[in-house]
């Protein structure tokens, strides 16, 4: 059992034994007792949330890499493209996919809160929701990319997308060199969450030389 002394710095206690956790559990009990929400419905929502991961986003990108017609579909209507693959694009009314190229690199932020294509990527990482990212993605995006270890090529235009309203953005990262022989599943394994936010490139294939 951890100890929290009185001189503990004022950081929120995120674990399930902290005051916020107790509050959340008490809130659920109260709301269920008052018949405001149904416990089964809450469970269903919990299950849906924990089922979300970047795997679905990676499948979309991998298919776009191997199939130019699907790529166009994804760029035109990402929600429909996701449904074509039997994926759940989530309740967000509109998901828009943007494509990184030799000339252009996209990076996504939600400066006002944490808007994110959760159905396709899972919950956003803590850093995406953090105050420094939300601020600096707009004022110092190149500095942010440097921190993430991304070096943009000479003459690559950086474009920052701020999801301020109902649209959720998904980045189609560039297909790495040396992947011509890889199948869709192997390609999907290279496509990371961060590459679909625009703060990383996909992983290089294992057989690639430096």
């Amino acid at each position, binding site marked *: 059992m951890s100890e929290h002394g009185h001189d503990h710095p*004022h950081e*929120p206690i*995120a*674990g*399930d034994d902290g005051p*916020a*956790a*107790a*509050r*959340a*559990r*008490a*809130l*659920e*009990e*109260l*709301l269920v007792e*008052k018949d*405001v*929400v*149904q416990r089964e*419905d*809450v*469970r269903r*929502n*919990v299950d*849906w*949330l*924990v089922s979300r991961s970047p795997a679905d986003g990676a499948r979309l990108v991998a298919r776009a890499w191997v199939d130019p017609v699907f790529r166009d579909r994804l760029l035109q209507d990402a929600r429909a493209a996701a449904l074509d693959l039997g994926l759940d694009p989530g309740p967000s009314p509109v998901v828009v996919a943007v494509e990184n190229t030799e000339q252009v690199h996209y990076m996504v*932020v939600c*400066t*006002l*809160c*944490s808007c994110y294509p959760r159905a396709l990527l899972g*919950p956003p*990482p*803590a*850093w995406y*929701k*953090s*105050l*420094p*990212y*939300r*601020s*600096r*993605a*707009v*004022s110092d995006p190149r500095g*942010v990319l440097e*921190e*993430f270890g991304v070096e943009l090529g000479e003459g690559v235009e950086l474009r920052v997308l*701020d999801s301020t309203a109902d649209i959720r953005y998904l980045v189609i990262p560039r297909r790495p060199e040396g992947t011509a022989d890889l199948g869709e599943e192997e390609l999907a394994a290279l496509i990371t969450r961060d590459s679909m936010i625009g703060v990383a490139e996909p992983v290089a294939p294992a057989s690639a030389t430096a």
Partner: protein
Amino acid sequence: MKQAVHDRGAWPTDAPIDRTEHELADWEVLTDALVHSLAGEGLMNVDELRRGIESMPPDAYERASYYERWLYSIETILAEKGVLAPGELDARLET
């Protein structure tokens, strides 16, 4: 023009970005699920959730964790609508 505390784009800061991965705690997933359930019941929409978060006093907003802000918002909005009586949740925590 002074920006509201949640309006963080270009907010002056040199702070580095902490890239530590944090898996969501059970209570955080629960809080998220509660909002979805409340939305399903027509009791709280995403705009109200955001408005509730934005109503936090600035220093409380900055100190709170992401889902602590959500909890604050749920309580604020539900109290506003009379779904929760003032102090009802606090009283529950004391028992």
